[in-house]
């Protein structure tokens, strides 16, 4: 862990101006895991429309960080900054800084391809390739020309990690599209794991699944955080409460002058704290179901 920034920073209970950031003592300092991501005054806009503004937060190693908030608050937009998926949207613009392991993610010599290899993503709607189960998992390692001794082992390992092996071990050559929604989503997780990423981003991974499949994915996430840093976007507060260590609450703020809406970070704290003793009244209103 030679590449960790010298001063591990703790999450702050509420968003503070960046100048205070270093000085702000945190009640969460009990954990010493270092930040993987650090954002500074991060804003994203599509064309002339501001999507999220002025985000300052951390993602800590080996933890699950949940981004919650009402729809339209820019959680997914924020998530897609972490592996530069926003690059693919023609007029998306990212301002401010995101540091990954202390490196500027949007620096000139950073290759988005390499970023995405390192930082995997699981999408809202399961999106297995129309290939066999085996080929789905092997796709990444093959494309990336990873040095793999035995592809079979790697596929099995990834499927085991994704808790899917027992269900599909007999039909690896069958089409992935024939699996159930929950299985497809776990296959997508296996596919992401197979390229040995550092971080896994999950964009509402359970929103298209039934409660049982959801429960399995949640168990899986807790399981996976031993090895991976996970960031999950969810509109389901219970889910955030169940699986995450840290929760960030975003909401849509209305610009008084123009009437336009953009997302901003309201509160960012340990999940237990945020759900039991929210510091901001907007957070309280949201988690008690009074709005959103």
């Amino acid at each position, binding site marked *: *862990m*030679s*590449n960790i920034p010298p001063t591990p920073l703790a999450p702050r209970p509420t968003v503070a101006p960046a100048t205070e950031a270093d000085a702000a003592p945190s009640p969460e300092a009990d*954990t010493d*895991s270092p930040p993987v991501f650090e954002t500074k005054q991060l804003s994203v806009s599509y064309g002339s429309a501001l999507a999220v503004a002025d985000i300052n937060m951390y993602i800590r*190693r*080996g*933890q699950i960080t949940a981004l919650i908030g009402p729809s339209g608050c820019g959680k997914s937009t924020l998530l897609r900054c972490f592996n530069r998926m926003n690059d693919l949207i023609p007029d998306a613009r990212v301002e401010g800084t995101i540091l*990954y*392991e*202390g*490196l500027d*993610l949007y*620096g000139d*010599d*950073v*290759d988005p*391809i*390499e*970023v995405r*290899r*390192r930082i995997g993503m699981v999408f809202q709607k399961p999106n297995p390739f129309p290939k066999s189960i085996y080929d789905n998992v092997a796709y990444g390692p093959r*494309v*990336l*020309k990873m040095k793999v001794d035995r592809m079979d082992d790697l596929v099995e390992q990834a499927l085991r990690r994704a808790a899917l092996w027992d269900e599909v071990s007999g039909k690896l050559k069958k089409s992935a599209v024939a699996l159930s929604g929950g299985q497809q989503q776990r296959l997508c997780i296996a596919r992401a794991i197979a390229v*040995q990423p*550092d971080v896994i981003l999950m964009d509402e991974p359970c929103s298209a699944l039934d409660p049982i499949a959801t429960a399995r994915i949640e168990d899986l996430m807790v399981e996976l*955080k*031993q*090895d*991976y*840093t996970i960031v999950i976007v969810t509109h389901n507060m219970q889910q955030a409460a169940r699986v995450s*260590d840290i929760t960030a609450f975003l909401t849509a703020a209305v610009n008084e002058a123009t009437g336009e809406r953009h997302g901003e970070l309201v509160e960012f704290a340990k*999940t*237990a704290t945020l759900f039991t003793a929210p510091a901001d009244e907007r957070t309280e209103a949201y988690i008690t179901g009074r709005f959103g």
Partner: protein
Amino acid sequence: MTTTTAPPAVAPPSLRTGNVSRSRKFRDRLATIAMWAAFGAAALPLAFIVFYVVRAGMHLFSYDFLVTNIPIISSKPGPGMAPAVVGTLLITGAATLIAVPLGVMGAIYLNEYGKQSTLAKFIRLMTDVMSGVPSIVMGLFIYTIWVLRYGLSGFAGALALACLMLPIVVRTSEEILRLVPSALREASAALGARTWRTTVRIVLPAALPGIVSGAMLAVARAAGETAPLLFTIGIVSKPNTKLFGSNTALSAQIFRNAQVPFPAAQDRAWAAALTLILLVFLLTIAARLITARFARK
């Protein structure tokens, strides 16, 4: 909540391009270049052809060219394509008058009445097959059922072109009709109007611009057709403004003159090609403008 202590596998810190295999980058770059090249491979010949037609066609193309008769001796230089211009307009016009009403009626049947019935499905299949029939086969078909009995005439050519236009008109019209919101139909039906009344008063006016532009594209396609005219319309050297009796057309004249070794005839072919392209492009542009206006509404 268990606090995990085991830090994950250490990732090397660099995110530089160098980390992505050079050959992968290269192949991605290569593929992108190939895509640009593919566009060039299609655009360049197009530019060439248009350039040549304009350059070679320019020096004979004039008002005179459009109104003078074709010289009887084809090695004689000078203008003259009037019979062909008249023929093209007449034959294409007649074909339009046959194909468009039939095609639109067919499309109305398919979309408003037939929908998913077996007959409608069968007709749709037939339309598809018909649109794949080579134009020369259409010409042969008209030759066997019409020309053998009634002789060569502009009308026979129009019939052949109409057969080619029909599937295009049916298909584009059906697509346009499908775009008419069914709320409009329901609103009219709720007032007690019969289907045909709803169709004529409500659906058709709403779909009209789309249908017109589809028909114009079909006309543009038909105006450029040569093969079905070769053995249906015959040949004349003076304008024939009547539908019956032999006639000629721009496309047929280009074909004929292209095979003649005399530069004078070839010049006329180029100028005729320029005339034809202008005609086709005008129709296409008109169709686009109408579609664009329709789309904005």
